[in-house]
């Protein structure tokens, strides 16, 4: 990697870790009824909200009530997003007069945004009216993220409390996540992004007269002279407000088709840095929130350390593979070497202002979290470079992971790590003074096993069907990778894609929609069940046989468990996709 690359990445990680700590501590206070003085002025608004919703903020919920509240709330969101897309043709704020979205695509997008996946089966600027973007999609960017945060907080309370039946109030956790965390951060980020050139308006698309006319790509043979286009249509819209929360809430659904590669979504290296920071900020902060709320800060840092170490490993592979470039292109007399005047490397599907370093860093970050926004096209990555986001998603979105979902996913792996260690030393596994028993491990197993089932099962199903194979855009092993990536992304609620796959069909919209739904809600329910079970347990003091979980040894154990479970599940599929393609690419030259 280049010296500048090391500097950019090092600076990024340092800033991230410096900001994550105070934010994590702040969030811990928000969720523990200890609001800091500088936000107390907003409390009347919060109280008014509860009064209007007829919520008794002081009334705590059992895990089943908590889960029901979340599911009803998500259902309301699903219906609203679906209806907005279907009716947008008759509704205001639609200057381009975009018509109703097709039912299968609208279903897919509604599930996608309610499940915090934000898979884009559609092209934003050619499909969604401003009203749909604002009132449908931006809202889900906030509330699906906040719902994930609420579940994580409920699980943390399961560890922090003992001998109680309740794990908090869903409506309070949801409201506070939005009011005190997501909304202020989004306002700030949105305005800074506008300063960098991200657009924010409600105007119709603008037509400009270009300097030189553009040739049509395919022209009828009898047309002479060939027709040209001397104007350019510039898509407009309220982009900045959506992009800010899209990044902060690990949502990832772009305002435009090409997401954060679009110059109006991500115009400068500074906007790129801030959007990148926003991807990992809250997931990293949540580790500190966890440590603060269970009263043992080291436990939070242990989890963060495991995440950072796995992240850096994968990042190094992506940077190396992309910088090395494509040998088949080098053979055509093309210069891919990095120099002072160019980034070099594999530039297909990448933007010059981001080059290799910022593109590979983004790809790693967006897949490690369940963000799924892209600033370069993963489908055009070298085989090993593309393996990085694919494998990170398949690890279960626990390396930082989504806001909230990342932490609760990682805590499930912690339980499994403790369980495995317990088996090895012949003791009942314990974590933070709680005995981990059969019910907890069964629920943990569900959380860990459902996504692979969806990913591998879905991929197999699509490969067997004509409608599934018809979507493949690239020949050979890469075609398998495209389908594998799609189901990984959907089941992991990530939302990025090997976007060549023609997935806006009834077949894929339905299948991937189901995968996103199960990947979200069939994990949330067992996680809440664990929370309820843990909260009910007695706290037992640590004894001589207790495995300490705040040591470097435990960090290594946790990393090993995450990587082993992932590898055992997915190596065969990866061998047929990216690894086979890598061998083919090197074999040709």
């Amino acid at each position, binding site marked *: 990697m280049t010296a500048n690359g090391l500097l950019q990445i090092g600076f990024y990680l340092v800033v991230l870790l410096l900001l994550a700590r105070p934010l994590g501590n702040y969030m811990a206070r928000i969720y523990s009824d200890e609001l800091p003085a500088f936000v107390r002025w907003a409390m009347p608004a919060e109280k008014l909200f509860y009064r209007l919703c007829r919520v008794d903020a002081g009334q705590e919920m059992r895990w089943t009530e908590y889960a029901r509240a979340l599911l009803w709330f998500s259902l*309301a969101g699903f219906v609203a997003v679906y209806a907005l897309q279907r009716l947008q043709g008759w509704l205001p704020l639609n200057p381009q007069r975009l018509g109703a979205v097709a039912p299968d695509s609208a279903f897919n997008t509604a599930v996608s945004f309610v499940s915090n996946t934000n898979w884009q089966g559609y092209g934003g600027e050619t499909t969604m009216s401003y009203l749909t973007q604002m009132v449908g999609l931006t809202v889900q960017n906030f509330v699906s993220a906040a719902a994930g945060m609420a579940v994580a907080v409920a699980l943390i309370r399961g560890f922090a409390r003992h001998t109680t039946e309740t794990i908090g109030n869903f409506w309070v956790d949801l409201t506070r996540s939005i009011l005190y965390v997501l909304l202020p951060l989004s306002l700030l980020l949105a305005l800074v992004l506008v300063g960098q050139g991200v657009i924010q308006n409600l105007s119709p698309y603008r037509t400009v007269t270009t300097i030189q006319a553009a040739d049509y790509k395919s022209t009828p043979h009898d047309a002479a002279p060939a027709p040209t286009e001397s104007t350019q249509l510039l898509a407009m819209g309220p982009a900045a407000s959506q992009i800010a929360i899209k990044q902060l809430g690990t949502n990832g659904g772009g305002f435009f088709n090409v997401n954060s590669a679009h110059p109006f979504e991500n115009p400068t290296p500074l906007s790129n840095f801030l959007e990148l920071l926003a991807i990992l900020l809250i997931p990293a902060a949540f580790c500190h929130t966890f440590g603060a709320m269970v009263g043992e800060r080291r436990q939070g840092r242990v989890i963060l350390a495991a995440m950072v170490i796995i992240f850096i490993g994968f990042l190094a592979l992506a940077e190396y593979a992309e910088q090395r470039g494509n040998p088949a292109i080098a053979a055509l007399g093309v210069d891919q070497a990095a120099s002072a005047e160019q980034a070099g490397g594999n530039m297909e599907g*990448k933007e010059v202002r981001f080059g290799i370093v910022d593109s590979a860093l983004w790809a790693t970050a967006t897949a490690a979290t369940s963000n799924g926004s892209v600033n370069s096209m993963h489908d055009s990555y070298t085989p090993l470079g593309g393996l990085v986001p694919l494998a990170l998603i398949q690890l279960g979105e626990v390396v930082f992971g989504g806001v909230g979902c990342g932490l609760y996913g990682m805590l499930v792996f912690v339980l499994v790590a403790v369980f495995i260690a317990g088996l090895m030393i012949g003791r009942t596994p314990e974590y933070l003074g709680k005995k981990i028993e059969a019910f907890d491990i069964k629920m943990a197993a569900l959380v860990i096993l459902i996504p692979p089932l969806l990913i591998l099962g879905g991929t197999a199903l699509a490969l067997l069907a004509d409608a599934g194979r018809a979507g493949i855009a690239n020949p050979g092993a890469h075609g398998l990778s495209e389908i594998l990536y799609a189901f990984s992304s959907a089941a992991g609620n990530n939302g990025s894609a090997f976007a060549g796959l023609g997935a806006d069909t009834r077949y894929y919209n339905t299948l991937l929609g189901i995968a996103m739904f199960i990947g979200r809600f069939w994990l949330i329910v067992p996680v809440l069940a664990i929370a309820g079970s843990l909260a009910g347990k007695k706290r037992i003091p640590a004894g001589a046989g207790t495995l300490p979980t705040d040591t470097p040894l435990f960090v290594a154990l946790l990393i090993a468990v995450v990587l082993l479970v992932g590898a055992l599940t997915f190596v065969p599929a990866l061998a047929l996709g990216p690894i086979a393609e890598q061998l083919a690419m090197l074999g040709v030259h």
Partner: protein
Amino acid sequence: MWKEIRTALISFALLTLLTGVAYPLLVTAVAQLTMPDQADGSLIRQHGHLVGSALIGQSFTDPKYFWGRPSATTPTPYDAGASAASNMGPTNPALLAAVKARVAALRKADPDNHAPVPVDLVTASASGLDPDITPAAAYYQTARVARLRGLPPATVRRLVAQYTKPRLFGLFGEPRVNVLQLNLALDALSR
């Protein structure tokens, strides 16, 4: 159960008003009042006409101009109403054929130039709208542009240097040249 549903509906409606109406409208109002140029797309005006956006590339195929990145948008390249990438994989024969054709077109326009072609000039951008090329890609084209415009090569190279944006604080992003702005400056120089 009815009580739970009612709470879900009211809270969803209120949060929609807050995050889907109040929030985007507030950002729009502040952005339009304080940064209207950026909020409207950093448009470039010349002699009273809109000629483009400083952030969005345009198609240049005339050898008198600097060429930008290949664009995968349809039906025309650099269609800013429908951004798109090629999404071609690294071993796709169609990708290699496209690169080969682009190398050939560059060589045909500038037969005396035998230097290896900078990679960004022959690979499609992620957005299809990339406004920039690398300084290497700009310098690769200076001899051709200078010859066809009857300008001294040193003048054109100076113009490229003048329009090269370095890394922010020497750290972030990559050095780059905005093709539209460079070509506008070139036209102003030749006129």
